[in-house]
């Protein structure tokens, strides 16, 4: 399988603190790769580095061979690296459908001026976006809530909406920020199904997560961070048998890594 995303020797320093230290790994096409690690391991920083919300101190991130680190977030999104946020990050006062329609912005062929004048291209864009938004909402089981104002949605649906927004940008790789956090077992399993369906549609997925059982179930491969460094990489079975990983998680219950 071809490599979709390549993280090479990436380091991020905040003053004297090294949050991410010389981490390298790659994500293959149509793969589900999870980044895990104890609290404070640097997962979130790594996530922001990959989505270009932070600029690396050294090292770089490449998408299909093209360097994307150091670009503005909206440029990285245009290249195809799109992140989701935890559930509060949506357009609260828009309808669910409008949230998804606006996220199609990247695909618009008409310019701002074209939209102002209501040119043919702009109208065609609008129609196509509406249709695509309805498809995405159906895929994520949000159709019945399409005209609800987003801030009124319950927890689980908010997270699905976050993913719908990400999907609408038509990314090459979708970065999911703790998609299972704060969910009960049923919710988690539903989300696991959803992520799998996304992959079946041809998406490459990188997720950062705490919930070990879910991660073990869903991932093709995992990358384990501890104190900003990569300590292991491999399939779920390999990771569960890895001494360094067990050591890093010592003190937390064995259950946490699915033993």
């Amino acid at each position: 399988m071809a490599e979709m995303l390549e993280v090479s020797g990436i380091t991020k320093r905040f003053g004297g603190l090294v949050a991410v230290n010389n981490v390298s790994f790659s994500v293959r096409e149509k793969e589900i790769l999870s980044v895990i690690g104890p609290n404070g391991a640097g997962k979130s920083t790594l996530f922001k580095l990959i989505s270009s919300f932070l600029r690396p101190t050294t090292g770089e991130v490449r998408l299909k061979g093209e360097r994307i680190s150091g670009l503005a977030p909206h440029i990285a999104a245009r290249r195809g690296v799109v992140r989701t946020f935890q559930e509060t990050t949506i357009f609260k006062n828009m309808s669910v459908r409008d949230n998804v329609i606006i996220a199609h912005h990247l695909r618009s062929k008409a310019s701002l001026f074209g939209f102002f004048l209501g040119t043919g291209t702009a109208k065609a864009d609008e129609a196509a976006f509406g249709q695509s938004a309805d498809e995405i909402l159906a895929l994520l089981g949000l159709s019945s809530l399409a005209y609800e104002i987003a801030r009124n949605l319950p927890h689980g649906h908010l997270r699905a909406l976050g993913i719908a927004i990400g999907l609408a940008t038509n990314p090459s790789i979708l970065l999911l920020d703790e998609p299972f956090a704060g969910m009960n077992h049923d919710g988690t399993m539903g989300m696991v199904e959803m992520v799998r369906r996304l992959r079946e549609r041809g998406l490459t997925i990188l997720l950062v997560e705490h919930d070990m059982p879910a991660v073990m179930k869903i991932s093709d491969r995992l990358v384990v961070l501890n104190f900003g460094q990569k300590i292991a990489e491999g399939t779920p079975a390999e990771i569960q048998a890895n001494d360094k990983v067990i050591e890093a998680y010592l003190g937390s219950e064995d259950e946490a890594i699915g033993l």
Partner: protein
Amino acid sequence: MTLNRNLKIAAVVAFLAIVFIAVPAAISSSGRFDLYYTLTSVALLSIASAGVWLTFYIGRINIGQGAYALTGGYVCAILVMNHGWSFWLTLPVAGLFCAAASVLIGLPILRLRGVYFAMVTLVLTEVARLLALALPITNGAKGIVSIPLPGALSVFGITLIPDFATLQNSRLAFYLLAVTLMVVCFAIMYRLVNSRIGKLCQSLQQNEELASSIGVNIAYLRVIAYAVSSFFGGVSGAIFAAISQSIYPSSFTVTDSVNFMLNCFLGGLGYVFGPMLGTLVLYFGWDLLFQTGQFQLLIYSGLMIVLMLVLPNGLLSLAETTRKKG
């Protein structure tokens, strides 16, 4: 859908009939020609307020419109007095000058949010006043006076607008000019807000981080919105200078900037026509309270506080709730 559309068209036609036919007819039959000046002011202030409303729409509290109105006034006055330009040419130039200035100023300050942006824009108004006092070209505290009335506007020898100085009723002419510009301005605003650009602005207002993650160039969009806003400020300032035939550093001050913002609040931040209604109500409200003498400001500010508590979404939200109930 079609019913809704017909209703909208009817509302627009009714509005145009009122401002262009009914109001002038009522004024000439009652002989209250001073009302022209008042209504012209309302129209011009509502243009500047519409600009402020647009910056609210991208999630920024703008208390700096006075600076652009003042700049627009001076650009118009200087070009007419020192360089002999036609007023009609200075009008777009004043707007464009303000838009260009706002791009330069906006690039750094639009990174700020909330109260920080508000504070900087507040200072901007004061800076503009002090600049007008200090710069040699603006003639200091004496200001620029005796600006001639707008001349004739002809294209290819056809006179579109006659020389204002030759008119018997230049007040009516200014009224028609201001109202026409107001209609154009709000038509532009309506189109902006109801196209995709409006949705993009809303996305900025609600969550800039998310907007940039879906590929919206937030810095660019913010500057564009701010430039349009300042353009409106500049144009309205330029006409004010032409009407009063003078411009002073104190023509637009912090109070005016605050009023532009209040107009938006009062009308409703969620409604394109909010600033127009807000300006009308505030302007006449202030005048009506004139008889209360020394209590004028007290009653006025008290009423404002109550209104904001009772109607946080502005006067136009009243229409919405009745529509829902009915």
